């Protein structure tokens, strides 16, 4: 059996953990996790140089299975923890993986400020439009008029567009993928990790157990195939009118700019003092 389970992904799974994983059958989080693993594999990183940080929720259970330096923190604070990890050890490639409620509701403040700061963290948001683990309450991304267990008469709040939020907060790389387009997703994630600066990848996923059940969207397969129908590649979207894009979402790389990155800017200050000290020492010697 050992040889049989020797996919690329299995190299990066923790042997001490028991499988199958914790998620419901057919959950897109597993697919997103596979995409993340393949992205890291394609970049040929040493396992010791990768740190995966998460908060609380279904998605936040990903790190426990991954054989990296993993950190499962408190609800919404993953980015704040990751900021500390990255600053204290800039060698590490820090990846934050988080759900929509975790990152945008309780952790919204940390999210926009990390994006503004442009610190070299890769943030992956698995967006399933609902709080899955606690039983289907509405989240900041639940679309208008959809049902949730705390919105039994339909959602009357407006929802966030996480990618737009990231872009306007100052993230320097923004992309959106779906779990249906799994290979494109791992490409986007690997681009995001290699990008120097705050990079953000939104992953449209499915929660058929809560969101699908409450909104009669069908099985896992149906929900994943729904993504195929409603996803518009960025290149095609550029040629489409606003009306045509109504109700659809654009996938692919949405935004990329280059701005000074926080950790390297801080390093410049430290280097300046180091040089000064060196000069000082030379003066004293002479």
């Amino acid at each position, binding site marked *: 059996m050992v040889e049989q389970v020797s996919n690329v992904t299995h190299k990066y799974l923790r042997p001490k953990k028991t499988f199958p994983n914790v998620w419901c059958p057919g959950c897109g989080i597993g697919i997103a996790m596979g995409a993340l693993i393949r992205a890291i594999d394609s970049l040929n990183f040493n396992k010791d140089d990768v740190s995966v*940080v998460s908060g609380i929720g279904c998605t936040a259970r990903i790190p426990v299975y991954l054989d990296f330096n993993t950190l499962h923190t*408190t609800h919404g604070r993953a980015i704040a*923890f990751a*900021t*500390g990890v990255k600053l204290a050890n800039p060698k590490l490639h820090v990846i934050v993986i988080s759900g929509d409620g975790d990152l945008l509701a309780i952790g919204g403040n940390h999210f926009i*400020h990390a994006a503004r700061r442009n610190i070299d963290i890769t943030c992956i948001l698995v967006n399933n439009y609902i709080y899955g683990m606690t039983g289907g309450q509405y989240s900041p991304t639940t679309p208008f008029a959809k049902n949730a267990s705390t919105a039994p008469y339909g959602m009357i709040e407006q929802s966030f567009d996480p990618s737009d939020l990231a872009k306007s907060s100052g993230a320097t790389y923004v992309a959106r993928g779906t779990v249906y387009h799994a290979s494109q997703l791992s490409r986007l994630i690997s681009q995001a990790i290699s990008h120097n600066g705050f990079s953000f990848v939104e992953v449209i996923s499915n929660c058929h157990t809560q969101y699908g059940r409450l909104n009669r969207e069908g099985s896992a397969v149906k929900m994943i195939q729904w993504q195929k129908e409603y996803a518009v590649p960025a290149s095609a979207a550029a040629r489409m009118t606003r009306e045509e894009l109504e109700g659809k979402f654009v996938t692919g790389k949405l935004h990329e700019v280059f701005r000074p990155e926080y950790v390297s800017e801080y390093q410049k200050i430290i280097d300046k*003092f180091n040089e*000064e000290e060196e000069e*000082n020492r030379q003066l004293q010697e002479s």
Partner: protein
Amino acid sequence: MAEVETKRKKSFYKENVPLLMQGNEACALGALAAGCRFFAGYPITPSTEIAEILSRLLPRVGGKFIQMEDEIASIAAIIGASIAGAKAMTSTSGPGYSLMQENLGYAYMAEVPCVIVNVMRGGPSTGLPTKVAQGDVMQSKWGTHGDYFPIVIVPSSVKECFDYTVKAFSLSEEYRIPVTVLSDEVLGHMREIVKLPSQEELNIVTVPKPYEPPEWYKHFEITPDFRSPMASFGEGYRFHLTGLTHDEYGFPTASKTEIVRKLEKLRLKTMRHLDELTDVRVEMMDDAHIMIFAYGSTARAARQAIRMARKRRFKVGLIQPRIIWPFPDQIVREYLERVDLVIVPELNQGQIIREVKRLRYRHVKIIGLNRFDGELITPQQILDKLKEERH
């Protein structure tokens, strides 16, 4: 040569020279001397000076300073930095300390060393931002949810601010636990003459690194003295850290035996070392019939009050705990047997007095002297209280 002199003057740490400095400054310098290389904070009166000083000095020693978006993020960032291998600290005051409680609990659970300086101010809520109080004593013990046994230090002078910040780092590393330093507004802003010790005189403890190969490594190993070595991220030990109750490897568990083992470890690692964690200054207690139990800036007034009272032939002594949690039960109980009156002056409506009452021996009279109008207790007040009781 002149240029060298001016450049040398930039050096911030001068050993064995009398320096006039604030309590907050002493905290900041103590942190640097202890090897703190990461600070994350959020501006809050009256602790802001610590952040300001460290933002200036940390890059000079290769450390990092970051001003986070709130106190929740500040403590999260220092925990992250500590996990990645830097000695880390944050400073705050009452409202910020309340915000930090959630992640403070995380640090207890995940056994992450870090130091939190809480410069206490009047409360509750926004309260009295520029006035002194000692209202966070019980919060520092019971603030976060669940069962845990914290270490909390209360300095009472500028020199102690320095020494005990250094000690806070050592204790946090030794026990792998977040340590709170409860300074207060008066102490933080008061200037005193301090001679900083040389680097060799400081007794700095650093958490030991594991020596076993990575595949054998247990991040939360239960050792005979409950203090386990700690690897950092990026060192080849790929471990998992979580706030969920976990086994010795750090993986979440729901097994009854593992839960008990973990929570017992959290208790025993401080409670087994009570003798090392007792730091009490005892003054003039040999012949005393009256004991004043005071901590922090109140202890200064108490010391003066004792001098005044001794002149009037009152046999008074002072017990001043510098490590207030775990509470020094042993010593307090010992002295409670010898006295018949205990006065507990506090800048709140009676918090630590409950602990003293818990240890009450026979019919010792224990009374509180409470002031919560934003001013310090004066020596005269303590003396008046004493006279009133001994009338």
